[in-house]
């Protein structure tokens, strides 16, 4: 028996008990809208004793009887119920009994599973530094998974759920992020319907799609020949050019905004989509050129030389040999450029005043006023996010390639 080993076991149990209780309590609150005050102390105690029992039974393995985790689960449940006077979430049993039951099961199962994963092979006797560090890392990873998943998912969950609420319910209880099916489907999506009918979002969606696709086309048309020249043809200044393309990434858009605003205002290009379609490709071409030339360099030059020998012109070589071989790279560049153009905010915000040609980003900003209710703003955010996320999930392989290949731009 080593006090340090017992302390480590106890600490693991305490940590998981408290964390599981806070997470599950908050989730319960958000799902039911009832304020659950999670009994963190009781939960910590339950986790602590559960962990001790788990390691004790685990050391005594081979003696027959139920597995150690079953003892652990029973102890966690009993201690939690006793220490919290049968009210682990400080809610009376009559309030949302099904959800409370599920939360209780989730707590016991979650704590037991976490302890089982973290404290496998642990014992009360002396443990080597290696064994202890394995346990530290398991704990850190477990906490990391929970925390990362929550901080990433929570804002998106809030975005979607808020957009499905009505003004009264939002004001009455900001904690209630459940889906209220009683108002029917039309009630649920009312914010979306109003955005499309009264706030012209259908048009913004079309404009955004048009601007993004046009940016992709222009970018590819200009950057494919440029990238080919940089990667395949020999000319003075080639190496310098290949390196300095990266520098253009680093020019901040905000420095360009004032001169472009001034000049475009005088040329009458400011409040037009043409203006946007001049600026967007200029910001995406360096990225596209850099990504494509890297890919072109990796293609075997012999194929192109064979094409040249067989009488194809350079243009023929590019069209018939290089481009078909580079389809994956073209796909990732296109998706990446599409994403940049779709998400672009600064120029759309500065240049566009006319609601007929608002892009989605610009349209969502116009919802950010005290006269427009919150759920409309969130519904606008959902409309702007969903197409990008769908494309991203659909083509994740290409996009991740694109993101790592050349996209240090942010």
């Amino acid at each position, binding site marked *: 028996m080593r006090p340090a080993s017992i302390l480590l076991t106890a600490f693991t149990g305490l940590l998981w008990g408290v964390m599981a209780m806070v997470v599950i309590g908050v989730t319960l609150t958000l799902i039911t809208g009832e304020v659950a005050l999670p009994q963190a102390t009781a939960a910590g105690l339950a986790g602590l004793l559960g962990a001790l029992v788990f390691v004790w039974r685990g050391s005594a393995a081979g003696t027959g009887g139920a597995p150690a985790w079953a003892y652990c689960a029973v102890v966690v449940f009993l201690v939690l119920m006793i220490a919290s006077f049968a009210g682990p979430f400080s809610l009376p049993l009559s309030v949302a009994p099904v959800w409370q039951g599920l939360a209780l099961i989730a707590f016991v199962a979650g704590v037991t599973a976490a302890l089982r994963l973290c404290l496998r092979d642990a014992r009360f006797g002396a443990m080597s530094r290696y064994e202890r560090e394995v346990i*530290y890392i398991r704990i850190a990873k477990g906490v990391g998974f929970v925390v990362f*998943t929550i901080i990433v998912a929570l804002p998106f969950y809030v975005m979607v759920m808020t957009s499905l609420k009505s003004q009264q319910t939002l004001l009455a209880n900001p904690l209630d992020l459940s889906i209220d099916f009683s108002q029917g489907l039309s009630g649920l999506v009312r914010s979306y319907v109003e955005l499309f009918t009264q706030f012209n979002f259908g048009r913004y969606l079309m404009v955004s799609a048009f601007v993004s696709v046009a940016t992709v086309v222009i970018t590819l048309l200009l950057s494919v020949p440029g990238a080919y020249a940089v990667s395949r043809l020999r000319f003075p200044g080639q190496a310098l050019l290949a390196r300095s393309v990266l520098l253009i990434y680093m*020019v901040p858009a905000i420095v360009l905004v004032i001169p*472009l605003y*001034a000049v475009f205002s005088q040329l009458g290009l400011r409040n037009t989509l043409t203006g946007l379609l001049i600026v967007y490709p200029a910001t995406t071409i360096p990225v596209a050129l850099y990504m494509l030339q890297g890919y072109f360099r990796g293609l075997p030059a012999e194929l192109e030389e064979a094409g040249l020998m067989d009488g194809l012109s350079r243009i023929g070589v590019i069209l018939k040999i290089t481009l078909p071989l580079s389809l994956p790279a073209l796909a990732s560049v296109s998706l990446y450029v599409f994403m940049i153009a779709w998400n672009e905010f600064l120029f759309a915000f500065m240049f566009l005043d006319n609601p007929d040609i608002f892009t989605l980003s610009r349209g969502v900003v116009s919802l950010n006023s005290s006269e427009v209710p919150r759920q409309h703003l969130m519904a606008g955010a959902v409309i702007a996010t969903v197409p990008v996320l769908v494309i991203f999930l659909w083509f994740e392989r290409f996009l*991740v390639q694109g993101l790592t290949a050349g996209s240090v731009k942010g």
Partner: protein
Amino acid sequence: MSAETSQPVSEGPPKGIGPMQRREMWLAYLMLAPTFLIILVIVAGPLLANFWISVKPVQLGDLRPPAVLVNERLRGGPEATGDSATLEYRLRNSSRKEEIRDVVLKDEVPAGFAVTGLPQGCELTGSALTCTIGTVEPGWRDRLQLEGTVSEEFLAANRPERASEPVVTGDANNVLTNFEFTFENFSRIFSADEFWSVLRVTFYYTIFGTGGALVLGLFAAQLLHTAFPGRGVLRGLFLFPYVSPVIAVAFTWVVLFDPFSGTLNALLTKMGVVSDPINFFGQRAIEFSVFGIPLEFPLALTTVIAFEAWRYFPLSFLFILARMQSINTDMYEAAEMDGATPLQQFWYLSLPQLMGILSVLFLLRFIWTFNKFDDIFLLTGGNAGTRTLTVDVYEQGFALSNLGAGAAVAVVVFVVLVTFATLFIRFSPKEEGL
């Protein structure tokens, strides 16, 4: 060079460029020309123009060039054929500072309006009216009155004087192109008290935002390094903050952290963690004291930095994960045999292998965080002690309508940036190939 010249000329390699190579060169230049052109016009041009504007006294309103505004109306209220009426042109110089030269008004006299009296300087050829007005002073106003009688046709038409719009042309100095310079913009921004606090906030934001994103990314990469069921799903999920439009996630954070109707504050107050809601994006600082020393915690700035780290950790996560998966596993097996503990393996094997990508990411993200405008602008609008240099460009140039001062701040941004970029090129590890 010296090796080449020491060789006998006749046996040296062919000098200059052969015809085929020349053709290749021209083809390359031709293929690069559109890229060059657009970058010259949209990136290099504005960069230079920014320096130009920063030394000019330009207000946002000056962008509309000075012009003579004209308003045409019919006076005298003719009711029957033969009644006399007056066509009146009211003219005004839109600028209070610039004169306009060679002003000429052109219009079509409406059908059925028989002109009886022409004002001075005006000529009528058929129905085409041309009035030569000449040079007008700043803030000048005048009226031109065209006397005449009306016919049946004129009376029958609905507002016949609107049939053709009068056109006024003239030349004026453009404040953007003249040669009037001032250093007032720079002296104004440097003498402002807030400038130095803006600079300080910029550096806090850049350093901690970059560091936070890197540390989170490193941690997330460790989580997803080993295979387990559901890894693909989690990897996709972890990229969401970076892939989503900034506008959507920024407003979601604003809604989530709202002091009155936000979910987070409701949770904190209802569960009794805090007694009053916290205005995460609106409160400049929380004051507290440690051992009697009063200290301030910059709340809004911290929240904004947290957003920055949250939004950009996926990028560092992707790069670090890609690098980690390419590390040879033999090394770890050897270390394992030698009894290295997991933390020792991480510290002495993984981290040194990741140093290259980490430093590249740090430098690039540092520059990009420094350049960032959208995030802070959407979250706080630069209020509550979160105004960075980039937000200050907008604040000066557009919120305060002083384009020149905005451009001056942009020059400061650019100068700081060039310093970073020089350092970056100097110290970037070459082997990462970024």
